[in-house]
């Protein structure tokens, strides 16, 4: 008949198993990561979330127009607007060439006289078949796009008389 193992054997066995507790797979950790699971982030908006940046939102003041703002606007326009509106703003971008309804040209009298807030709201919430870009373009970048669209409009209606002598002399 076997004698029961002495306590030291049991304690030793348990102590030997302790390091094994560290052997979990650290490539998968139980933490908040929107893309950690096969399911993506939930489509439903959690309760208590306050929506902002809707059309008519004037919480973001118009920033001063600087060359940096215009360059940022150029980049954002190229990324998000040019596929339909085209780099020149004539509304014949590649997606329009592939069948998307053509938007009106940006450099029309109507749009040139539209207040900046109106252009900002269209970028934010869309207009007609154009979807809103609130989720993709940050508020400050939307103002940059508006500033760039203004520059685009002016560039296509420039008269020689509008230029200063220095600008005319420039190559």
């Amino acid at each position, binding site marked *: 008949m076997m004698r029961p193992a002495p306590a030291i054997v049991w304690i030793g066995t348990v102590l030997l198993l302790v390091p094994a507790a560290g052997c979990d797979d*650290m*490539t*998968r*950790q139980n*933490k908040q*990561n*929107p*893309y*950690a699971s*096969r*399911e*993506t*982030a*939930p*489509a*439903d908006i959690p309760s208590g979330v306050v929506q902002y940046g809707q059309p008519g939102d004037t919480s973001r003041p118009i920033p001063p127009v600087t060359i940096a703002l215009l360059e940022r606007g150029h980049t954002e326009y*190229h*990324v*998000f607007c040019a*596929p339909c509106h085209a780099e020149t703003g004539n509304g014949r971008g*590649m*997606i329009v060439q*592939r*069948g*998307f*309804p053509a938007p009106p040209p940006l450099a029309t009298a109507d749009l040139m006289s539209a207040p900046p807030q109106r252009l900002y709201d269209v970028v934010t919430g869309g207009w007609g*078949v154009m*979807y809103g870009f609130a*989720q*993709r*373009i*940050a508020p400050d970048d939307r103002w940059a796009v508006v500033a760039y669209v203004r520059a685009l409009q002016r560039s296509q209606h420039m008269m020689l008389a509008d230029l200063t002598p220095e600008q005319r002399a420039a190559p």
Partner: protein
Amino acid sequence: MAAVFSPRANVIVTVTIIGAVGVIVGGCLWWFAWPRSDYVRHVGWAIQQPVPFSHQHHVAGLGIDCRFCHSSVEHSAQASLPPTFTCMTCHSQIWTNAALLAEVRNSLADNRPIVWARVTDLPDYVYFNHSIHVSKGVGCENCHGNVARMPLTYKARTLTMQFCLDCHRDPGPNLRPLANVYDMDWHPDGATPHPADLMRAYHIGGRNLTECSICHR
């Protein structure tokens, strides 16, 4: 006196020696080479997706910028997968009846996200951040390969720790001017600043980029 070894002994010894060498070589290959193979690392595998999205068509064919869909890449650790809303920006008007896009339309109608399969999945102990890389001149292509040539998306580089460290030890040659970060098939030309100048312009080099805590927390 009878022979000590029978005529079969030669065969047995030869087979044993060849077998032993085979086991050792095979064991080394299995232990060291196999886990490092592109097959195990899934490099070059096109993964089954709910919609067979073609980067080749959208990027090379239509000229859509990476950021149109991966819009948080400049501001966030994640480049982010586009929500169905982004797909429908165009597909609410074009290819509206395509059977291929039924999953996209159903997703919008049912308010149910499309569950894309991950192409590159870093371990959870790696805290990779997209925004710092694109703002310091690392091109998308440096890690993701020429996505504009992928009809179905696959992992183009190993993305192992070795891959990360190779660049973190000497980032210069992998840097681009900011204007070219999102370009595909980009190569430095005569007008490209010298790697050392790019490093200085991006203020890289003040901190040791191979410190553990750069990537691990």
